[in-house]
């Protein structure tokens, strides 16, 4: 994304078309990236944020449950990958660490939802289509980048300062995971100066294919 494109206020409107058709996952992520790229022009991110607020407008428990679903996905994905990804050496230990981090996120979110008087969502059944290390790494990159964008998109909707702090401490770890996985894929660890944000509908669309 070039400098000029980022400064283009038109970008703020790009995400408006998200619901209009049958977009592929990469399209959806790209729309999110464009919408967030508009942050570059002072407050061009404003309409995007307000739209997201108007769209979901959930309680903090709703947002935490949404995050929990994503953490379930990542946690299950890495747990399985310990054997399925056919990894060795450095990558093998990275997978172990990622599985452990995501499991801790699941536990923290579950406990927080309960303490707020909410009911944690049930763990969905997942199906991850890959058969080798490269396939695993490709999916891992999608999940981690999507996770970062999901938390960043939800952040401004969080009402409690403490829940926001908690989400922030998780999203930074997701961003670190994303960078590490990207390096494994020989890709830029931080491809953009501003991480895109995705709204709930975009995230659900991105993860839907993996929910069995």
């Amino acid at each position, binding site marked *: 994304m070039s*400098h000029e494109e980022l400064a283009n206020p038109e970008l703020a409107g790009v995400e408006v078309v998200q619901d209009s058709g049958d977009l592929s996952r990469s399209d959806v992520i790209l729309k999110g990236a464009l919408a967030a790229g508009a*942050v570059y022009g002072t407050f061009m991110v404003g309409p995007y944020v307000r739209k997201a607020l108007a769209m979901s*407008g959930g309680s903090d428990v709703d947002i935490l449950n949404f995050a929990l679903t994503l953490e379930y996905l990542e946690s299950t994905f890495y747990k399985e990958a310990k054997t399925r990804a056919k990894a060795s050496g450095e990558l093998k230990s990275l997978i172990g660490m990622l599985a452990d981090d995501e499991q801790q996120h699941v536990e923290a979110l579950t406990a927080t939802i309960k*303490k707020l008087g909410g009911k944690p969502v049930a763990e969905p059944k997942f199906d991850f289509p890959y058969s080798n290390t490269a396939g695993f790494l490709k999916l891992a990159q999608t999940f981690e980048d999507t996770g970062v964008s999901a*938390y960043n998109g939800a952040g401004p909707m969080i009402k409690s300062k403490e829940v926001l702090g908690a989400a922030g401490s998780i999203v930074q770890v997701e961003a*670190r*995971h994303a*960078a590490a996985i990207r390096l494994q894929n020989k890709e830029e660890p*931080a491809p953009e*100066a501003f991480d895109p944000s995705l709204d709930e509908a975009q995230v659900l669309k991105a993860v839907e294919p993996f929910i069995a």
Partner: protein
Amino acid sequence: MPESNEREKAGAPAQSAVARAVKDPVSRRKFMALTGGSAAAAAFLAACGSDSGTTTTTSTAMSGGSSETAQFGKGDIGILNYALTLEYLETAFYADVVKSGLFKGADLATIKKFGEEEAEHVSALTAAVKGLGGKPAPEPKTEFPLESAKSVLELAGTVENLGAAAYLGQAGNITSPEVLASALAIHSVEGRHAAALNTLLGTSITPDGAFAKPATAKEVLKSVEPFIVS
């Protein structure tokens, strides 16, 4: 939605009692306490099973309020100017490193890329301060010890990890949802930079474990003080 978002209210022209309460940082904290904010804090701290050290750091950062960035301006402007000062520092650091000739090839490309991204953060934050009607903080004069490739990478790692912690420490103090969205978009990029540098250094990508720790403005400013000449 039956319950509107207080952040949205804070930015709205309608001045209900709630909107006024959340706009004023002090009343806002009282308001949060009344509406269960403190219960949420207790919930998360318990949920994370943090050790006492984490709990202390977190609660310090949370309760510090925006007053700790008051020297940079009021409220969100102060927070943005504080971030701008850090981004100026990072931009200058990477520019000096590129000039030092200590790096070549892929490592140099990474350093250049990170430096460009920090420069974009500077532009965005400057525009955001102006957008709020504030005066952008001046660019500080900086000086960094650039002795060897290894020590420079270590310093880069320190600076980026600190930068990520600095944004995390301020997230809860931000009033405007737009400013928060922008800060979050930068925060995770700083996290990515930090993890990439930690990877180059062969250290853990997540030095704080599964939950990143915030840093207060006081802690951060003290750490960067040695690099600011004026």
